[in-house]
């Protein structure tokens, strides 16, 4: 990606998280759709299109043969055209910004600059699909039908579609050629529930207290790992973590690993948060 686009100011990060600042000035930290999810979404759409095409063909065939109407043939031609060119664009121009396949995979098309997704951008990104997928396919199909598809041609078509197919893997923003020209990218849309408040669990009862030394062992990273362990609720993980913390802090086991970890979490969280208020964020146990 570096060479033809060498003017890019800085390389995007290696993770799929991208900063995305709203007009209110808050960074939403969007997560890009992974290549696998994108491919799956496309497969779903392709299957849906083919199914729709088969249904239209059967319908037109039945009605058309019964009525011997030329109009049915015309409708079929137009219907197939609309399915092929309109499916992606029309769905993405709608309020959800996603085709049915993308919706199922929890993806959405977004303008990279954070502006409204315009019709022009949607058309541009989907017209490019023509040369990414359909051109080599029709080309190959046409040649095969005439018995002309030799090895060289097949190879050429494969390489051609390979370049475009794997294009998203060669840039960190997972952009298709269409996304590049349209200035869009595909992000994950997630609908999660608010997890339980672990800090409050401990407050319901009398709480263990810990010494400064015991609380000084860890930083934010370890705290959030502990949070994950508690949320997952796996007994063996909880026992291991509790044993480790007790060993390091020199505490004796009191038989209640979960309660101990909840209390330790609340106490550590409280301590680290008080640090935040005076501008001290201890990232991990190695930080001072």
């Amino acid at each position, binding site marked *: 990606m570096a060479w033809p686009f060498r003017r890019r100011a800085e390389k995007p990060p290696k993770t799929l998280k991208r900063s995305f600042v709203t007009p209110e000035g808050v960074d939403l930290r969007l997560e890009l759709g992974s290549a696998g999810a994108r491919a799956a979404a496309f497969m779903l759409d392709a299957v849906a299109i083919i199914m729709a095409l088969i249904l239209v063909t059967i319908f037109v065939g039945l009605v058309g043969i019964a009525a011997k109407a030329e109009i049915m043939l015309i409708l079929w031609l137009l219907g197939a055209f609309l399915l092929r060119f309109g499916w992606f664009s029309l769905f993405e121009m709608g309020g959800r910004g996603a085709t049915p396949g993308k919706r199922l995979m929890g993806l959405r098309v977004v303008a990279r600059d954070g502006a409204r997704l315009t019709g022009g951008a949607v058309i541009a990104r989907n017209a490019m699909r023509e040369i990414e997928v359909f051109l080599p396919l029709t080309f190959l199909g046409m040649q095969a039908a005439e018995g002309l598809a030799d090895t060289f041609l097949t190879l050429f078509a494969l390489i051609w579609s390979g370049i475009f197919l794997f294009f998203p893997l060669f840039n960190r923003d997972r952009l298709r050629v269409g996304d590049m020209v349209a200035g869009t990218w595909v992000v994950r849309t997630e609908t999660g529930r608010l*997890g339980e408040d672990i800090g409050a669990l401990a407050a319901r009862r009398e709480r263990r207290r810990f010494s400064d030394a015991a609380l000084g062992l860890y930083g934010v990273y370890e705290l959030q790992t502990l949070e994950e362990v508690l949320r997952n609720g796996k007994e063996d993980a909880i026992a291991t973590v509790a044993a480790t913390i007790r060993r390091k802090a020199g505490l004796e086991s009191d038989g209640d690993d979960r309660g101990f970890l909840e209390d330790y979490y609340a106490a550590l969280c409280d301590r680290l948060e008080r640090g935040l208020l005076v501008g001290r964020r201890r990232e991990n146990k190695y930080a001072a």
Partner: protein
Amino acid sequence: MNADASALLGERTPAPLVNASRFRAAHAADWERLDQILSRIEKGSLRRLSDEDLLALPGLYRTTLSSLSVARDTSLDRALITYLEQLSTRAYFQIYGVQTSAWRQLGRFFLRGWPEAVRSMWRETLVTAFITFASAAVAFYLVRSDPSWFYGIVPNGLAGGRDPSASAETLRATLYARHQDMLATFATFLFTHNAQIAIFSFALGFAFAVPTILLIIYNGLTLGAFVEVFAAKGLAWNAIGWLSIHGTTEIFSLCLSGAAGIRIGLAIAFPGRESRTDSAVRAGRSAALVMAGAVIMLIVAGLLEGIGRQTVLDDTARYAIGGSMLLGWLLYFYLPRKAAG
């Protein structure tokens, strides 16, 4: 230290709540409500939303957004921050990302978007028009000097008997046949075929416009070769009339989609002061409008071909229709209008 810690263990006192708990208690109701409103909008029932909820949406969005900022700075509860990020993102897309209504969009496209995009590409359009007619002229003279060139240019299927070996009578008959079988179907087929070419010449522009220009040259060659076949039998005037009834629209539209492809190719090859990606995006979005417009023009051309050509048999009338269509398009695209208010 050991003894100290052991001594503390077991001594139970009420401890302070962590920030996240206090924070959750204070704002959870707002988040919950925003979540519900968003879920309803996402299910597609915007109309069933009460006015009260609709009015509350922007306020709730900003509350949640500021909750997110505060939580990031003061809270270490990762589940809370993740939840707020997801909620804010969903709300952001509903508030900022949603399109205006389809009709409003269409209206804007026809009133401004399309003609403005076409006008911004006048240079490329001139180039594609020139290439089309130059290659048509080349094909014309090639076929004139040696009719066997025709078979090299036009594929067999497309000619439909209209080749240099056909007699003047057959050729004349193809121009004025009234009840040709399946003509409407053929016109539809031609429309889908041409629309595909229009989309290809847009998309292939990505390869520095070279394939696009080849496509345009090929179109021009076919045009010139056909005209020569008729001209050789003294039917030039009739053939051009037969072509022009829909051909002015069709050729213009293919010129425009070619111009769209060239615009993209140039923007990628020579980005100027912009970064290459920015330049590609700017060109891509306006070129896409031109291409979508070209497909609409091809629908018009298909209608003219399917209906007009059958019913209008008079040469002068054909020229008049073709000419006025061209004039109409030119006025629509290039007539100066008031700047956007």
